[in-house]
């Protein structure tokens, strides 16, 4: 399993919901999830980072960024990496 859940590609949108609207899927860590779930994951990851607090949070984000992970796209965090 890789972390923290990078959206690797858009999968075919071939699902449908009960009201007839289409569901778009994305692939995260090799698993196909709905775009809704992927969006919810961003908020959930953001909440987890809020919960961790400082200084661990900033250190962890900076470490992720140095590893080439786009934290902004996966956690919605714009002020990341200030420690780096």
């Amino acid at each position, binding site marked *: 399993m890789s*972390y923290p859940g990078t959206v690797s590609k858009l999968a075919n949108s071939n699902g449908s919901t009960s009201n007839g609207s289409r569901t778009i899927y994305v692939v995260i860590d090799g698993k196909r999830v709905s775009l809704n779930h992927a969006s919810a994951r961003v908020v959930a*990851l953001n909440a987890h980072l809020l*919960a*961790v*607090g400082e200084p661990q949070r900033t250190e962890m984000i900076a470490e992720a960024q140095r590893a080439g992970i786009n934290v902004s796209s996966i956690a919605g*965090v714009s002020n990341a990496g200030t420690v780096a």
Partner: protein
Amino acid sequence: MSPTHGAPFRGFRDHEESPFFCAAGLTPEETWDISINRLADILETLGPLADAGPIEPSPALLCAWHREIFGNLFPSDAGRLRWRRGRDPEHVYFDAIIGTHQTRRLRRYRGTSPRKLHRRLEKICKEFNATAAQIRASDTAERYDAIHAATRLYVKVLRAHPFVDGNLRAGIAALSAGLVTLGLDIVTFKDLERHDELLSIAFVGKHDPYRPLAEHIAEILGASETA
């Protein structure tokens, strides 16, 4: 601890001293990832739930959200309000930043006493549900009123700190439910530090202490709508 430049990324994980740092048989990173997915599941269901009728937070619903996020990981603590550990009340302490940038320091808070916790949560939820009903019934209520009500719910749940751990994550479920049930979208706090500062003001401030955080949430919602 300062970060080591060029260190390989070990993955996101909870704070080592956190009771929910690592579930049995899992790594801290796996623990973190599973709880993210469970919280995401909750957030995903809020829209359809709100379409079916008002979401009315209650102590039972808060416990259900907490159980959903952490139940598979920490079955003995997930979904239960703090009560007693042995003979002693199960108190919990948490820190918040106070002061300006120049005078910044941490202030330690104690969550609501376990004995009073259920009643306190009931009051918080009833207050939100009554305000939400008024907003829904009103022709003149403004969008900010809805944001303010959801913000107040969020801050008060966090201040009560009902669980041994995972309070902010359960709090985000409450905030999101509060926003969605009043026709708004859920929010991501891009500026983590700003969130912490405004939350601290909401904890200690006088004269509508929720306003700065509510205004920040309004800005986030406004920006995401125009994006």
